[in-house]
């Protein structure tokens, strides 16, 4: 893949680099006016507002033209190139290495752009952390760029203003700060790892010593730092060296779950799991209160209350011989589990790692730290000084205190949304009234932006110059892959304004940061870093620490239900609420879309007599919220799980008013685990879930092998009435390793992005019309109190003897010579026979016209190589046929046969565990052929004789292996 830096990035004085000035200004220029009227007579007839929109868009496209040759705004009606720019060949995508940002951490990506439109993000294969793998947030970031509800220009109390007005206002404020040394100036930032932003903030504080900075991290990993501070005496970031683990004991730690560290951990988890071919290389013992995808992968899972974790951790500690660890009293079940876990740890000889929940309590963390010490597992932990640190920043609570005390004159909120995501008990919204002048910097005019006097729209990461550090500290210099098409600025530009620069250039600010930091010739290193997508050797230094021997205070013990807060698996802390792809993404264990639930255990549900969807009321210290109940198989009896990120009011047309707001009742002092009560309300709602039935019902969809029986029964030969067909040169096939799949959904979002899969909305999902080409089936076995969970990605099986094809009366679905089951959209008349006949029900139908409105920005996110499907047409997984064809073309150009790795499907490249392998089954040496010969290999519904090309590797059942160990 050819990687590029923007054509202008070498000439910092290039015309393109001058951010175009405000559109109103631009449109005010009579000459420009005349030109527009001449060029676009229609524009003269526009109503004032429509005209402003038009000019804004036009302005954007002109600016783009100035910036990158002739690339046009993604969503104004197509304007043909007047002159074909040198470096653009239509239809041939360009790839740029850059990064998107999640909770301040860089997520390194390769952005694919068509004629200047980024349409798809892939992981950056060269990056030391992700090694080309990705997660749902990285995949979905591109849609955030085209979010139609982004703030499109600066506003003051909702009225559009120009950036000049903003500059004037900031100038006035600066004068004041100058007098008071920044007395009463407060900045509130979200999680920050950006060296440039840190530099700027430091500079700002030097100018105005009395100003203060606070940080607000509704989720992030603030919890982790507090725990390490308690356990090791200093806040730390920690990296589990899972590759070298043989046993992991997790106390409620969803280490494979969503978040900034998911990709790294999933990667090392799967490589450890695969380490020795004849069995699971890594065995996981997990005690958890709320079912998580990690728990689903655990071979030995204990269901217990979150508040029991300290005792369990202490028990394991005493087993491991930690001094001062008395054996607490445990239930029989807990004791057995502890015995097994301890035995496993012993047998692992130093390759056993104990981990504690980042959202857990101090006592557990401390016991775990000491147990690791005792087990000599320190080599399996890599500690680094926290990346997310703004120099001596205060907490949000302190800020609120100062605000209520009336000590805050000016509040600058930098890219965070406290009005929504602050604990309800802080009454942040009320506090805002006391502040004289408030500025909000953010992509959207969200809850906070609405309340602030000034809302200053920021650029999306994909249109920004900036930088950020990946989870391991490796810095990425973020380069724009498209020029801003709204009247926006990078956060660095705005902060630079505050420290006195007028209309600063975005790139220059970042360059300034790195001029001193890059080794050797700056320009070379700069270009190299942009090309690579990261700055080499910038990973954080490991620090050696010993557990803090201080007395461990057992956590509060009071009665009542455990109320556990968790970030939402798909919209995270709420920042992705307006991303349709993520709203419609089935949440891993519930397959719920478009909302959040209050998860209760089956026992508790029986006690208060609720079923899925019944409304229940959770009360914590006089604050309460109401949401739909969900009976979570395998949830601890007295635990109630609330999911953050919903109940937003100013997210946009997609995310507004869905679900309940858990922040409203979240205590400041106990943000993750607290006590409360639960009551049935009496009302109910229908939840939009994509899988209605969860038990495997004794079928063998997901098969298992064990160390004792490492191979499955080979299937009986399938007789056929038909002569075997000679397959062409390449015969495509896919193998999915169910032992590696952690059900993270990255493949689903990748597929959605690659294949223009439409978002159909809550009501359509409710009646079973979701359009995902690839679904992750989720099954339970065993009793509902403590089930085992399985994930199984189900794309089209591309059966060699496909029932669907036989059913189509018009040849709209047929077989390609390479064995791909093709769908010819423009031939389909919509009889839906193919879907009726499909034993796997992987086909999807356009019951309505699900395409985006022609004028909506999302149009620009579409992959131009994939047809948009109209109403009444069947669609389904194509093995990313557009990629296969592109590979053919490339190979033909070089006059060579296709090689292994030439074709990588979207789901395959997105998968953080490399569970999906795609390739040519005619080539005996290809990995897919190798896996098809594996003992764990099997086909879904083999007995149907459909001869699927998509097949599976059975999952390792490591339970019995443990008992031996």
């Amino acid at each position: 893949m050819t990687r590029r830096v923007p054509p202008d990035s070498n000439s910092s004085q290039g015309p393109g680099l001058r951010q175009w000035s405000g559109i109103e200004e631009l449109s005010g220029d009579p000459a420009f006016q005349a030109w527009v009227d001449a060029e676009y007579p229609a524009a003269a007839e526009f109503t004032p507002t429509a005209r402003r929109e038009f000019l804004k868009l036009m302005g954007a496209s002109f600016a783009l033209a100035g910036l990158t040759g002739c690339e046009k705004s993604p969503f104004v009606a197509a304007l043909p190139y007047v002159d074909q720019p040198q470096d653009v060949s239509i239809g041939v995508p360009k790839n740029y290495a850059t990064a998107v940002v999640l909770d301040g951490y860089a997520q390194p990506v390769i952005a694919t752009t068509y004629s200047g439109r980024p349409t798809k993000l892939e992981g950056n294969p060269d990056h030391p952390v992700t090694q080309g793998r990705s997660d749902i947030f990285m995949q979905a970031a591109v849609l955030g760029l085209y979010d139609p509800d982004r703030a499109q220009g600066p506003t003051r109390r909702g009225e559009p203003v120009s950036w000049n007005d903003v500059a004037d206002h900031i100038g006035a404020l600066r004068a004041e700060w100058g007098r008071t040394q920044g007395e009463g100036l407060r900045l509130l930032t979200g999680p920050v790892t950006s060296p440039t932003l840190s530099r700027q903030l430091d500079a700002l504080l030097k100018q105005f010593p009395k100003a203060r900075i606070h940080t607000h991290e509704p989720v992030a990993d603030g919890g982790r730092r507090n725990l390490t501070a308690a356990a090791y005496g200093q806040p730390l970031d920690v990296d589990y060296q899972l590759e070298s683990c043989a046993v992991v004991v997790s106390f409620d730690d969803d280490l494979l779950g969503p978040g900034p560290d998911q990709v790294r951990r999933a990667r090392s988890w799967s490589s450890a799991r695969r380490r020795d071919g004849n069995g699971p290389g890594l065995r996981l013992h997990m005690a958890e209160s709320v079912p998580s995808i990690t728990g689903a992968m655990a071979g030995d899972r204990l269901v217990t209350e979150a508040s029991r974790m300290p005792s369990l951790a202490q028990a394991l500690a005493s087993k491991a011989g930690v001094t001062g660890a008395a054996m607490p009293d445990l239930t029989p079940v807990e004791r057995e589990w502890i015995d097994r876990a301890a035995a496993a740890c012993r047998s692992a000889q130093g390759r056993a790692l104990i981990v504690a929940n980042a959202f857990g309590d101090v006592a557990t963390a401390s016991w775990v730290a000491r147990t690791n010490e005792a087990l000599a597992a320190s080599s399996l932990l890599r500690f680094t000084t926290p990346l997310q640190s703004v120099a001596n920043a205060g907490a949000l609570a302190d800020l609120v205190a100062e605000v209520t005390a009336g000590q805050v004159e000016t509040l600058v909120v930098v890219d965070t949304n406290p009005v929504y995501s602050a604990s309800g008990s802080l009454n942040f919204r009320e506090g805002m009234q006391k502040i004289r002048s408030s500025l909000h910097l953010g992509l959207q005019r969200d809850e906070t932006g609405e309340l602030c006097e000034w809302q200053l729209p920021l650029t999306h990461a994909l249109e920004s110059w900036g930088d950020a550090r990946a989870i391991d500290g490796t810095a990425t210099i973020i380069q724009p892959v498209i020029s801003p098409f709204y009247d926006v600025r990078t956060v660095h530009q705005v902060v630079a304004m505050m420290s006195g620069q007028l209309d600063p250039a975005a790139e220059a600010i970042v360059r300034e940061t790195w001029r001193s930091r890059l080794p050797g010739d700056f320009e070379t290193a700069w270009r190299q870093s942009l090309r690579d997508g990261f700055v080499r050797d910038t990973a954080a230094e490991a620090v050696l620490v010993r557990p803090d021997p201080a007395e461990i205070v057992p956590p509060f013990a009071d009665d009542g239900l455990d109320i556990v807060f968790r970030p939402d698996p798909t919209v995270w802390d709420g920042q992705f609420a307006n991303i349709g792809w993520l709203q419609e993404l089935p949440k891993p264990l519930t397959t719920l879309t478009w909302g959040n639930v209050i998860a209760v255990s089956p026992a508790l549900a029986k006690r208060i007599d609720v079923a899925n969807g019944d409304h229940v009321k959770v009360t914590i210290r006089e604050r309460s919220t109401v949401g739909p109940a969900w009976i979570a198989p395998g949830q601890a009896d007295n635990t109630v799980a609330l999911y953050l990120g919903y109940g937003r009011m100013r997210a946009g047309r997609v995310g507004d008013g869905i679900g309940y707001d858990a922040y409203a009742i979240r205590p400041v002092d106990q943000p993750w685990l607290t006590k409360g009560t639960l009551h049935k309300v009496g009302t109910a709602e229908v939840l939009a879930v994509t899988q209605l039935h969860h038990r495997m019902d004794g079928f063998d969809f997901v098969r298992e092998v064990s160390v004792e029986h490492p191979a499955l029964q080979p299937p009986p030969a399938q007789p056929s009435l038909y002569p075997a067909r000679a397959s062409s040169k390449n015969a495509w096939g896919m193998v999915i390793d169910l032992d590696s799949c952690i059900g993270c959904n990255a493949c689903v979002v990748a597929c959605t992005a690659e294949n223009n899969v439409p978002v159909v909305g809550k009501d359509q999902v409710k009646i079973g019309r979701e359009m995902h080409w690839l679904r992750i089936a989720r099954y339970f076995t065993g009793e509902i109190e403590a089930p085992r969970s399985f994930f199984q990605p189900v794309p089209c099986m591309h059966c060699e003897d496909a029932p669907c094809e036989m059913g189509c009366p018009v040849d709209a679905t047929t077989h390609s010579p390479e064995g791909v089951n093709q769908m010819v959209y423009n031939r389909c008349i919509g009889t839906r026979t193919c879907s009726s006949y499909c034993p796997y029900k992987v086909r999807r139908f356009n019951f309505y016209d699900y395409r985006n409105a022609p004028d909506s920005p999302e149009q620009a996110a579409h992959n131009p190589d994939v047809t948009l499907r109209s109403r009444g047409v069947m669609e389904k997984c194509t093995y990313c046929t557009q990629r296969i064809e592109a590979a053919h073309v490339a190979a033909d150009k070089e006059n060579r046969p296709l090689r292994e790795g030439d074709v990588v499907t979207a789901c395959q490249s997105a998968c953080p565990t490399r569970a999906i392998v795609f390739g040519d089954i005619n080539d005996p040496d290809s990995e897919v052929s190798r896996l098809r010969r594996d003992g764990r290999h099997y086909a879904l519904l083999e007995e149907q004789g459909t001869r699927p090309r998509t097949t599976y590797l059975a999952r390792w059942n490591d339970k019995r292996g443990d008992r031996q160990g």
Partner: protein
Amino acid sequence: MTDRSADVLPVNQSLGGVTEQLAGIPLHFPARRRWLATMVFACALLLLLMVSIAALFTRGVGIWGINIPVNWAFAIHNYVWWLGIGHAGTLISAFLLLTGSEWRNSLNRFAETMTLFAVICAGIYPVLHLGRPWYLYWMFPYPATMGVWPQFRSPLEWDIWAVLTYLTVSLAFWYTGLIPDLAAARDRARSRGWQIFFGITALGWRGSAAHWSRWSQAYRLTAGLAVPLVVSVHSEVSLLFAAGQIPGWHSTIFPPYFVLGAAFSGFAVVSIIAIALRFWFGLENLVTDEHLDLLGKVLLATGLMTAYGYVFEVFDALYSGGPHEIQTLIDRIAGAYAWTYWGALVFNFIPLQALWWRRVRRCGSALLLISASVVVGMWLERYMILVTSLYRDFLVSSWGEFTPTFWDWSTYFGTIGLFLVPFLLAIRFIPMISIFETKELLHEEQEERHGG
């Protein structure tokens, strides 16, 4: 079941009287008020259909309750139901003609008419249910610019040909049988308009001996073809399902099962119409209790054969031992849509048992109710066969549910209007009972009287 010794028609009536009576129905229409009332009702339903179709074509099949996995429901289900009804007419007249059961002569005309319009009702569904109905013509082989042709391995392709053939042949058969009566009506007609109408439609038939001999041959041979046609068409319809691998569909019992079910529902509708007509137009002298008795017997027989299909389907699933087959069986008798299965059983077979008694068979109202219940039962059966098989097929993860929407229902009831309106027009404009065949029968009986 057909004995020519017992008289079906009372012999104490003159041929001329019969002619005047039957040809008189269109010419001097007796039951105007009732007819008008029914017509208004039928037109209302037809209007409902128009509205539903307009909504469907503007917004798409999404207005129905279908989804993945249940992406065939009301459309296909009612298609099969209507087509099943449409099979009785041709079966009755053709099959009974061949077996020389003249008692049919009072029934075949409106039975065939009923067939025509039922098949039309069925016929529109495959069009409506398309995602892109405006491309229907792609199912026909014509030299397309795309170069592609229809796919003749597909049961849907077979279906188009089968149903169109059936419609055409039924129409031809019906009209051929109608010609002599149109002539009779022509000769009775007084007003100019009627004379022209019947004069043209009778094609100049004059009952010449040569005409009759050729006509009889053609008519009987067509009947001979129509019988296997009926069987083939509904067997083929059953292949829409049996050709798929879905548990509950993929079964060899389906073709006979469907054909018998079709005859069953069809005879039920024939009985309903027979009873209604004889009540309306006072045709007790032609549609006699003897007829009802025979209809009752046929209904009972076909019903029991259909019941055998049910039994065998269960046996099939258990005997195969396939876990998915058994799963589907359990879903049918205990699943979310068990009401369709038990509903079908109850409505189809419980009231039916009353027909073992001669007195019930000869009682119009009783037979009417039983037939009505059969019609409902068969409707539920089609629902059951479609939905209970689709909503839970192989992979648990793809299991779904189906709830019909307003538009599902409105389209269905609309087609009832589409059936009634033309049928009422037919009653109004053409002799609803075969005049000449009735006379033939009557004459034979009188002969026997004199002879015996």
